């Protein structure tokens, strides 16, 4: 079956823009400046979260841009401009702009083989999720978390080759990579035979034109977006002009032949479960639950932590495993249950992404107006730089939000169910998708109840 693909690089100006190092450097430098400023504001500014630019800029404005625009439409677009790996990369390469003297990354160790997966990212996300209410509301904690991330990225880049932090550790990169499979953009080679016959593999090894893939990926074997950071380095190093930046249909990566692994399957459950928990904690009316999430170290917090971990690491995957067993019972195929588990977990990605979009609608529209005063008075010190310091909090689109959430969630359910049917169709066992669709329906109704009921 031929799928829609449109190579943006056939336009000379786009190709020049993508190949030139300056545009990305400028964007990343702005992002790095913003990142450092956010850390400073978090440390020095007012401790009142919604009057502190660090909280408002990161957890409302950036989060809105990430979940409502960047991830759904550009996949790993954020990773291309993320400032966190920049200092480490400069140290690794020995230069700010260009491939540098250590461009091939041979002086660094490879990341330990047992850890070359997204299990660390899964654990890091879950760890942050346990403290998320505190991180989201206390500027100082946000600042320390961001500082910790950048220091860890630097430390790892000094020991290990390429962007090991981004690829194997970053808690945000893990879910961006997973959901980037749904985005209508991809970087791929035009002809994989060219790559196979190219002995030098300059896209992976690096050359005088650029570094070897910072994400430790051989572009010739790319079939999904998960590990491609859209840094455009391979575009600079490819000797045969064999790289395409394609527009494509949404979720083109969700093909049965692109089976996910267990770590990626688990990421789908962690994200879906976290969307459920956050909807209950942050948007629900249960005060006791909110208190429990913020009293770190207390018995209620341990209860919350156990419940979150049990739901995301045990209950949801367990329920889904049983769902798959029912599917295999209804429509037997020779595939072992663990394989159908990971294969069908892919079907949950659209629902997971739309769950986060729906959650973000409520959270962002209700709170984005805190940004206007924070822009004028980032530290909360009584400044009025833009004349917007006195603007009062006003929730936006509150009458439209529930309808949008409903439509987005039903869209996600249809998208997930269609993906499950596609996988089942490829297995010649169309009825195998039924239980997966029922699981998706159950989660959708639960989300509808949490968000709009």
């Amino acid at each position: 079956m031929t799928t829609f693909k449109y190579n943006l690089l056939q336009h000379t100006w786009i190709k020049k823009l993508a190949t030139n190092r300056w545009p990305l450097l400028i964007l990343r430098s702005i992002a790095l400046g913003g990142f450092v400023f956010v850390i400073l504001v978090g440390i020095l500014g007012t401790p009142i979260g919604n009057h502190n630019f660090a909280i408002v800029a990161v957890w409302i404005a950036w989060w809105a841009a990430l979940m409502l625009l960047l991830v759904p439409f550009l996949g790993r677009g954020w990773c291309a401009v993320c400032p966190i790996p920049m200092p480490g990369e400069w140290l690794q390469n020995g230069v700010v702009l260009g491939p540098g003297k250590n461009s091939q990354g041979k002086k660094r160790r490879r990341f330990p083989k047992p850890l070359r997966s997204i299990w660390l990212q899964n654990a890091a996300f879950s760890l942050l999720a346990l403290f998320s209410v505190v991180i989201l509301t206390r500027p100082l904690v946000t600042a320390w978390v961001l500082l910790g991330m950048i220091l860890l990225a630097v430390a790892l880049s000094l020991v290990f080759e390429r962007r090991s932090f981004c690829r194997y550790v970053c808690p945000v990169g893990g879910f961006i990579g997973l959901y980037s499979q749904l985005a209508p953009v991809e970087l791929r080679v035009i002809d994989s035979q060219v790559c196979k016959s190219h002995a030098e593999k300059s896209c992976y090894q690096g050359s005088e034109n650029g570094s070897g893939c910072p994400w430790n990926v051989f572009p010739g074997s790319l079939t999904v977006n998960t590990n491609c950071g859209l840094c455009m380095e391979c575009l600079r190093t490819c000797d045969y002009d064999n790289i395409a930046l394609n527009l494509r249909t949404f979720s083109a990566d969700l093909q049965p032949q692109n089976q996910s692994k267990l770590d990626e399957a688990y990421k789908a459950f962690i994200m879906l479960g976290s969307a459920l928990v956050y909807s209950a904690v942050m948007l629900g009316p249960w005060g006791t639950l909110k208190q429990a999430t913020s009293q770190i170290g207390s018995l209620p917090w341990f209860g919350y932590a156990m419940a979150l971990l049990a739901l995301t690491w045990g209950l949801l995957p367990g329920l889904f495993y049983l769902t798959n067993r029912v599917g295999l019972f209804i429509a037997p195929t020779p595939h072992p249950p663990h394989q159908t588990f990971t294969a069908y977990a892919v079907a949950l990605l659209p629902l997971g992404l739309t769950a986060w979009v729906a959650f973000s609608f409520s959270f962002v529209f209700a709170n984005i107006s805190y940004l206007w005063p924070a822009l004028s008075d980032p530290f909360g010190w009584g400044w009025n730089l833009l004349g917007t310091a006195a603007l009062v909090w006003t929730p936006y689109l509150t009458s439209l939000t529930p309808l949008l959430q409903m439509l987005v969630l039903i869209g996600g359910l249809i998208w997930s169910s269609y993906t499950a049917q596609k996988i089942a169709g490829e297995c010649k066992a169309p009825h195998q998708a039924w239980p997966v669709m029922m699981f998706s329906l159950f989660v959708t109704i639960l989300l509808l109840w949490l968000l709009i009921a």
Partner: protein
Amino acid sequence: MNPCSRIFWLFLALAVLMVAFAPLPQVQTTPSEHTFRIKAHSFEFSPAEITVNKGDQITIELTSLDVVHGLYLDDYGLQVKADPGQTEILTFTANRSGTFRFRCSVTCGDLHPFMIGKLHVGANLLFWRGSGLAVLAIITLWALFSNNSNGARITMKVK
């Protein structure tokens, strides 16, 4: 397409339209007056959920037990503010049905953005319509794929 299929699809399309748009029968009740004493403290409203019928006259007596708290009612756009130990009153007619969040409108501490309660006015049609449409979406996909399943291929890799 055989006649049975046509009838099925017609029925399904009608069901989708009905669930999405048909006005559901509402229980007719005589509008009454309700007073709710809501205590605001420690990032929670108590009670955090209140249920009334459409057309009811609502009086909310908001009492703050610790710091200054506010109550902003989504969609209605109404708000009231209460100083510590004080009670302030908000009166309105519940003329829109559905579920509406009310939020603290005065920064009251770390968890302020999450200080939320809910007002339920009559049946939450949006939730029931959403759930109904979700079920119908599954039925539609099942029917579509059941028709097309004969042509399926098998290429799933066994690792």
